């Protein structure tokens, strides 16, 4: 047997078979679904969030939220003030604008112990309810950060699937500049 088009064609066939197996595996067990649903608060922990600028109070219960939430629910959690927001976008996008008080933790920084810094410097504990967001759409960053949070013992994790663009478009509060608590990335 010798080198030639046959070898290349067979190589491509092997890669095709592997790709098919990978997509079947991914389809049955995507990374996203390995994220556990958020744990419910203890009854005493449930507080009615303030709903400003509204004639009729809209009932909002964080315990009813699933893992993937929309920007409106994220905003309600933000108004409640008991939720930590994590921005999983690159630093330059965070500096240009982010949800106020959100920590900057892009997936690239996970290996540097950024989540550990957040817990230590930001006083965030695994019992805390967290919302992770990135650019929305196809971005995987929020899921990656969320899964790492889950590995660290966090049990109330939400992902704002609409991402920061939806937040900004809705006219909710934003702030600019580097992360005031964790500082800039190295």
């Amino acid at each position, binding site marked *: *047997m010798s080198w030639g088009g046959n070898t290349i064609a067979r190589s491509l066939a092997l890669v095709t078979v*592997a790709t098919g197996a*990978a997509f079947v595996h991914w389809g049955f067990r995507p990374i996203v679904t390995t994220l556990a649903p958020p744990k419910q608060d203890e009854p005493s922990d449930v507080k009615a969030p303030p709903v400003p600028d509204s004639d009729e109070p809209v009932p909002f219960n964080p315990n009813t939220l699933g893992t993937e939430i929309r920007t409106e629910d994220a905003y309600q959690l933000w108004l409640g003030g008991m939720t930590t927001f994590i921005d999983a976008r690159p630093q330059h996008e965070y500096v240009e604008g982010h949800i106020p008080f959100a920590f900057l933790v892009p997936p*690239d920084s996970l290996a540097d112990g950024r989540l550990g810094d957040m817990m230590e410097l930001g006083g965030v504990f695994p019992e805390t309810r967290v919302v992770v967001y990135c650019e929305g759409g196809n971005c995987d960053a929020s*899921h990656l950060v969320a899964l790492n949070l889950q590995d660290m013992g966090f049990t109330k994790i939400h992902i704002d699937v609409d991402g920061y663009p939806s937040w900004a478009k809705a006219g909710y509060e934003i702030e600019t500049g580097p992360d005031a608590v964790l500082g800039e990335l190295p």
Partner: protein
Amino acid sequence: MSGTARTIGGAILLALRLATAGLFIWAATVKLSDPVAFATSINGFKILPHHHGMLQPLAFMVPWTELVCAAALVVGFWGRSAALVLGGMLAIFAVAVVSVILRPDISVECGCFGKFTLLCPPGEADWCNVIQNGILIALALPVMIWGPGLFSWDRWAEHRCRMARLDDAEKAS
């Protein structure tokens, strides 16, 4: 080549095939057991464009390609092609590590064998990982050049084809 030399050559190629396949089966199993860690590792290399949405498919495609080609190497089925794919992947990984070394603002672990290491100490990807990939390519290279050898499916299939052709020729004459 004499029969003895062919047998020794086949045995060496079989050993190289099994060694390479074993390493890749291990690497693939480790990656598939924790696709999140591998996806995080791929992301850390900052090679893929932003907003690509390919991270999760890649986190499955790379280990599955390693697994399929390693299985092919074990039995010597399309052995040369399997070795070529694995060698090509190792070369791509090596280029990715070099790109990290050349960008001092990035520090990322290799992730080649998940949380385990082979020849290099744990920590940031460095030249040791490039050399390690070079050694692994050297392991697969003889199979790329000479094929999977005597003790392989390919050789058995080739032998059967030859025998069938001889039978046909005999019947025809």
